[in-house]
């Protein structure tokens, strides 16, 4: 009905506009980047201007912000949280250590490339990125949503086996159900 491919109806335009301007971020500080989230959200930089606000549980959130390196123990929880989120959902990789290990390239306990494990829509580099950079990242994501390119979740569903293989390589003891939407 709404997702008709050929025509962009008024419904789609409203829907896209509201998706773009209302991003609920899951309040999960997975790494040290979490320290730049309070300044981004509070009075100096005020990300709420763009409709970005924190949400307490994965069920309500649209955006998973991976704030920095992920220890393999955290990766398990992040996958859980990511799969509990409802479509459409987006991931922002925050900090150099999510891109290629960064400062922790030789650490035995942190994953190196985040997009091997969960699909990432936007990367923000820096150690750590300034709040301005974080907001730029959010706006970049908004542009991607506008162009219809922020389809990480779809990619995840299509290539689930590949992602699972990578995840199981790091998480030795896989006690989770195979998929928990």
């Amino acid at each position, binding site marked *: 009905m709404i997702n008709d491919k050929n025509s962009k109806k008024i419904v789609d335009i409203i829907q896209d506009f509201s998706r773009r301007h209302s991003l609920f971020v899951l309040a999960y500080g997975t790494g040290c980047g979490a320290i730049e989230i309070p300044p981004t959200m509070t009075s100096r930089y005020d990300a709420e201007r763009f409709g970005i606000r924190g949400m307490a549980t994965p069920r309500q959130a649209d955006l998973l912000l991976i704030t920095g390196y992920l220890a393999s*123990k955290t990766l398990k929880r992040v996958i859980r949280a990511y799969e509990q989120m409802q479509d459409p959902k987006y991931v922002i990789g925050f900090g150099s250590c999510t*891109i290629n290990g960064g400062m922790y390239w030789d650490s035995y306990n942190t994953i190196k490339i985040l997009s091997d494990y969960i699909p990432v829509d936007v990367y923000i580099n820096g150690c750590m990125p300034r709040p301005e950079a974080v907001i730029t990242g959010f706006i970049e994501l908004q542009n991607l949503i506008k162009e219809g390119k922020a389809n990480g979740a779809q990619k995840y569903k299509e290539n689930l086996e590949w992602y699972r293989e990578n995840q199981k390589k790091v998480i030795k003891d896989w006690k989770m159900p195979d998929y928990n939407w």
Partner: protein
Amino acid sequence: MTDTILDKEQKLVQLLEQTFKKLSGKVVRQRRVTVSVEKELVPSVLSYAKSQLGYIHLSHMSCVDWPENNNFEIIYILWSPADKVQLFIKTLINRENPEIDNVDMIWKHANTYEREIREMYGIQFNGLVGAQEFILEDWDDMPPMRRDFDTVEYVDDNYTFRPGREDAGDVREEIVKRSGEDIPDFAKKYSRD
């Protein structure tokens, strides 16, 4: 430093050496005293220091790996709020069969340190209660903080990197090649060889 300043430190060493025969101590500097003991004596020295000498605060507890000498060194760092002296109690244990008595009945929070050391070095603390996993999860390699654990090898086995920089070599030449600029003078000084 004159002797009068180090008075209480030296008294402490004398007192400890008199009480425990197999113990050697030394004053490092003001407010720092180091004592070496056999591993069997550790609980008694600690409880003596806590109950009799006023060293009631366990500041820190650490472990150092010395594969050259084939032993682990365990260090208990105590603090006396009254004397204001930091007392180091060091003991060596064999690396082949590492075990030592636990001291969490003296200080409850020693439990945390011991669980960490058990996990990171694989040292058995006799009578230690608490979940085996403290920091790591599903770890199947050798305890990671041992010197012979090679973290780069582990990383190569378990993780992949983005292509682009295969070696850990000098990036400056590459920068020169790509940008056409000279290496700045301050950067030239710090060469690897």
